[in-house]
C-alpha cells in the first residue's frame, strides 16, 4: 500500500471535546503540581475544580438530542451519556471538596497526585459512559480501576489501606480477566466488538448461541465484580473499610454511574436479544445481594463497613430495574424500568456522597470518626448536622418523602409491571430489614450520650456544601418528578 492510498479522515472530535479537554488539563495539572510550592495545594485544587466546571460547560454546549458516533464508531455521544457525565462532574467536584482537608492531613506528599488521579479516574468513567466498543469499555474500566487502586494505597503507612489496595488490585485484575474472556467469546460468536454491531449480528441470528451464552456468563460475572453484587462482593467491605475515607467516598459514589452506563451499553444496547439469559443471572445476583447485603450490614460496628454492605444491597436493588426492562420480548415497559434503575443510581450516588462526606466532616487529625459509636449523641454536638445525617439515613432506608423512597418505589413499580410479584415482595422485605441499621444510626445520634464532645471544626465552605447535599436529598424527595423525567427523557433519546 502506498502512502497515497492511506487516506486518513480526521474523526469528528466535537462529541469527545469534554474528554479531550479533561485529559489535557489533567496532564497540565500534573505538571503544575510538581512546581507548586504551596503545601496546601491550593493551585492544584482550584485548577481541578475549574476543569470540572469547564467540562460541565463543554458537555452542555456540545450536547444534542441525536445519537452521534465518532472514532470509527467506538465512541457514542447520546443524551444518556451527556446526562450521566454532567452528574459525574458534579459528584467528583463535591467529592474533591469534601476530601481536600482529609487528604492534606493523611497524605501530605500525595495530595496533588490525589487530585490528578481523581481526574484520570473521571476520564476513565467518561470513556465507560460513552463506550460503543468492548475495547473502549475495557480501557475505560482499567483507567478507572488503576487510578482507584493507587488512591487506596496512597496512605502507605496504614496497614489496613495497603491490604485493601492489594485485595482490590488482585480481585479487580481477576474481574477484568473474566470480563475480557467474555468479550473474546462474544467476539468469536459475532465477529465484531462494536456494541451496535454485536446487536445487529444477533438480530440477524447468525451467531453461535452456545459460545455467545458462555461469553455472556463471563461478561455478567465481570460486571457483577465491578458493581460489587453477591457472590462477587467480597472486596467491597474490605476496600471501603481499609481505604482512606476520602477515597472510599470516591469509590462509593461516582463509579456507580459509570457501572450503570456499561451495564446499559453492553447488556441492553448490545445483548438485548439474549435478555432472557442475562435476566435470569441478574435476578439471582440481585436477590442474593439484597439478602446478604442487608443482613450482613446489621452485624457491623464500623460505619464504613456498614455502608459497604448497604452499597451491595443498593446495587442489587438497582439491578431489579434492569432485569424488568424486556420481559418475554415485550418491551412496553422497557423505558420505565431502565429509567427507574437510572433514577435509583443517581439518587444513591447523591445520598452516598453525603453520607461519606459526613464521616469526613467529623474526622480530624488522628481520629477517623468511622465507628458507629462515634456518632453517639451527635445531636448534642451539632443539631444541624445530626438532622442532615438523619435525612441521609432516612433516604437510604427508603422512608417516605425522602428521595430514596421514590427511587425504591419506581423500581418496585417496574418490577410489578413486569409481573415479578415475588421479586417485589422479596425486595420490600429486605428493604425493611435494611431499615433497621439505618435507623440505628439515627437512634445513636438522638438518644445516646456523646462519648466524644469536641466541637466540629470543619471549614465553612465544606459545612455549606454538606448542608446543600443533605437538603438536596430532602428537596428531591419533595419534587422527584423533575429528576425522574430527566432520566426518562435522556433514555428515550438514547435507546
Amino acid at each position, binding site marked *: *500500500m502506498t502512502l497515497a492510498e*492511506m487516506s*486518513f479522515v480526521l*474523526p469528528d472530535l466535537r462529541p*469527545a471535546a469534554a474528554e479531550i479537554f479533561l*485529559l489535557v488539563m489533567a*496532564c497540565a495539572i*500534573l505538571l503544575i503540581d510538581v512546581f507548586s510550592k504551596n503545601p496546601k495545594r491550593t493551585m492544584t485544587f482550584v485548577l481541578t475544580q475549574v476543569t470540572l466546571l469547564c467540562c460541565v460547560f463543554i458537555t452542555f454546549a456540545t450536547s444534542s438530542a441525536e445519537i452521534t458516533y465518532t*472514532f*470509527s464508531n*467506538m*465512541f457514542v455521544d447520546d443524551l444518556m451519556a451527556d446526562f450521566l457525565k454532567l452528574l459525574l462532574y458534579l459528584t467528583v467536584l463535591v467529592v474533591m471538596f469534601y476530601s481536600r482537608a482529609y487528604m492534606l492531613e493523611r497524605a501530605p*506528599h*500525595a495530595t496533588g*497526585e*490525589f487530585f*490528578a*488521579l481523581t481526574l*484520570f479516574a473521571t*476520564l476513565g468513567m467518561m*470513556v465507560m459512559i460513552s463506550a460503543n*466498543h468492548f*475495547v*473502549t469499555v475495557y*480501557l*475505560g474500566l*482499567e*483507567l478507572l480501576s*488503576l*487510578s482507584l*487502586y*493507587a488512591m487506596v*494505597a*496512597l496512605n*502507605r503507612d496504614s496497614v489496613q489501606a495497603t491490604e485493601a489496595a492489594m485485595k482490590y488490585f488482585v480481585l479487580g485484575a481477576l474481574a477484568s480477566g473474566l470480563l475480557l474472556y467474555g468479550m473474546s467469546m462474544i467476539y*468469536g460468536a459475532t465477529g465484531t466488538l462494536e456494541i451496535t454491531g454485536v446487536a445487529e449480528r444477533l438480530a440477524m441470528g447468525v451467531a*453461535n448461541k*452456545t*459460545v455467545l*451464552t*458462555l461469553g455472556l456468563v463471563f461478561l455478567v460475572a465481570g460486571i457483577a465484580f465491578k458493581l460489587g453484587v453477591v457472590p462477587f462482593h467480597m472486596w467491597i467491605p474490605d476496600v471501603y473499610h481499609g481505604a482512606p475515607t476520602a477515597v472510599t467516598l470516591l469509590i462509593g459514589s461516582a463509579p456507580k454511574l459509570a457501572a450503570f452506563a456499561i451495564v446499559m451499553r453492553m447488556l441492553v444496547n448490545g445483548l438485548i436479544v439474549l435478555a432472557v439469559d442475562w435476566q435470569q443471572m441478574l435476578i439471582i445476583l440481585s436477590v442474593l445481594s439484597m439478602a446478604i447485603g442487608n443482613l450482613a450490614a446489621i452485624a457491623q460496628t464500623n460505619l464504613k463497613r456498614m455502608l459497604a454492605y448497604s452499597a451491595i444491597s443498593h446495587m442489587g436493588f438497582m439491578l431489579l430495574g434492569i432485569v424488568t426492562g424486556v420481559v418475554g420480548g415485550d418491551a412496553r415497559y422497557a423505558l420505565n424500568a431502565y429509567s427507574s434503575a437510572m433514577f435509583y443510581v443517581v439518587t444513591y450516588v447523591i445520598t452516598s456522597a453525603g453520607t461519606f462526606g459526613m464521616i469526613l466532616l467529623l474526622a480530624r487529625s488522628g481520629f477517623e470518626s468511622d465507628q458507629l459509636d462515634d456518632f453517639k449523641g451527635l445531636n448534642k454536638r451539632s443539631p444541624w448536622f445530626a438532622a442532615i445525617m438523619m435525612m441521609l439515613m432516612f433516604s437510604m432506608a427508603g422512608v417516605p418523602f425522602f428521595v430514596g423512597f421514590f427511587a425504591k418505589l419506581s423500581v418496585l413499580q417496574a418490577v410489578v409491571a413486569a409481573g415479578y410479584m415475588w421479586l417485589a415482595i422479596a425486595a420490600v422485605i429486605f428493604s425493611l430489614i435494611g431499615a433497621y441499621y439505618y435507623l440505628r444510626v439515627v437512634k445513636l445520634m438522638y438518644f445516646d450520650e456523646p462519648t466524644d464532645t469536641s466541637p466540629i471544626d470543619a471549614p465553612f465552605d465544606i459545612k455549606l456544601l454538606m448542608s446543600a447535599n443533605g437538603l438536596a436529598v430532602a428537596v428531591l424527595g419533595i419534587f422527584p418528578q423533575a429528576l425522574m423525567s430527566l432520566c426518562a427523557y435522556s433514555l428515550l433519546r438514547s435507546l
Partner: protein
Amino acid sequence: MEFKTAVFYFLSAILVFASLRVITARNPVHAALNLILAFFSAAGVWALLQAEFLAISLILVYVGAVMVLFLFVVMMLDINLDRIREGFWSYLPLGAIVGLVMVAELGAVMAANYLGVLETDAPQAVAGASNTKDLGRLIYTDFVYPFELASVILLVAIVAAIAITYRGPKKTKYTDPAEQVRVRAKDRIRVLQMPAEKQD
C-alpha cells in the same frame, strides 16, 4: 497430515505443557523459565498464522524485557516457599473437585456443537501486504482512540507508582558552603538569662 498442521500440534503441545509447568513448578525461577517457553511457542503459533509482527513483538517485549525483569524480581526476593505452600494439600481436594466440575460443565456445554460450528477459514493474508504496516496504519487511524487511551493508562501507572513510593525529599547530609560562611555567632550560641541562685 500437512506439515503446517503437524507444526501447529507440536507447538501447541509444548505451549500447554509449559503453561502447566508455570503453575506447578515448585521453584519460581523454573516457573518463569517455563513462561518464557510458553511465550516462545505462542509466538510460533502466531507466526504460523502469518502474524509475524505480533510474533516478533511477543518475543522482543515479553521474553526480552518483561520476563527478564520478572526473573530479576523473583531472584531478588527471598520468598519463603514453605509458608506459601502451607495449606496447599488441605485445599487441594476441594479445589480439585470444584475445578473438575467446572471443566465437566463447560465440556458438556461445548462438546455438542463447539467443534463443528466454529471452524472457519483463517483470514488469508493478501499477497504482498505487510501486516506490520497494516497494524501501524490501523493503530493510528481506526484505532487511534483506544490507542491513546492505552497511553493514558500507562501514564496513570507511572503517576501511581511514583505517588505510592515517593515520601518527600530525602534528608541528605549535604551542607551549603555559602550558608556556612554566612553563619554568625548568634546563630550557633544562644545565651540564656538565668536568675542567680541564692546561697542559703
